[in-house]
């Protein structure tokens, strides 16, 4: 996968069109967007493609969150992450009650 900076694109916009592979666009050293080629016939399915990407990103985000939670549990024995559904439910109630959302 190619990586180009926003400055590269400003200087030469065709840099995105010349290479038919996925391109990561960075700004100030951080990834900001991904650009991938599409065929004309895919235009009809563009919304489906975008939706598929959204779903995949959400799945990855959930896995990252679960992994991060497992690491915290393993490394920090005093961490308050609930160990079972009942204590998670009680803690949720407590948080919502404190915020005036549950009476």
């Amino acid at each position: 996968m190619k990586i180009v900076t926003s400055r590269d694109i400003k200087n030469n916009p065709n840099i995105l069109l010349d290479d038919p592979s996925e391109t990561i666009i960075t700004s100030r050293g951080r990834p900001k967007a991904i650009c991938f080629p599409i065929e004309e016939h895919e235009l009809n399915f563009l919304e489906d493609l975008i939706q598929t990407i959204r779903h995949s990103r959400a799945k990855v985000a959930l896995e990252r969150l679960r992994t991060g939670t497992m690491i915290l549990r393993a490394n920090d024995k005093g961490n308050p992450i609930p160990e079972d559904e009942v204590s998670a439910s009680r803690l949720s109630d407590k948080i919502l009650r404190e915020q005036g959302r549950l009476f």
Partner: protein
Amino acid sequence: MVEHGSSNPRIIMTPKVLLSGVLFPSTPAAKLLNLILEGVNIHVVDSILNEEYELILLHPSLGLPHGRSRDFLNKLASLAEFVVPVPLPFRMKEYYGVDYHLHSLSFSAGCIPVIKPALHYFLGEQGGMIPVYTPEGFLKYEGYFA
């Protein structure tokens, strides 16, 4: 945000169900969450419910990794159908009490199911206006076995 008019079953998930789904991957709540992330079911929220998701998952007393929780919530919100709930009559507010908001949201979205961790305290179940399920009950209803 999803397009309106999709044929996928729409549901409302309470913050507790979301938390169970995130923390305990082998539970029915997690299976339900996976179905949402796979696009099989669409979760419906309003600004209040979305705020409650954030309140729970980002609360320091829960100790979840903040950045990853925020990222997941953003991605989840991008899959949600946002609804502006219509207010129900005041008498119903008195009757449904704490569940009034979920009723109002479900009613506004077309009487779609509300998924709660326990039905015990849900007055709506007696009122019969909207369908209410536990995650396990909903999965069975949809033909999945939790």
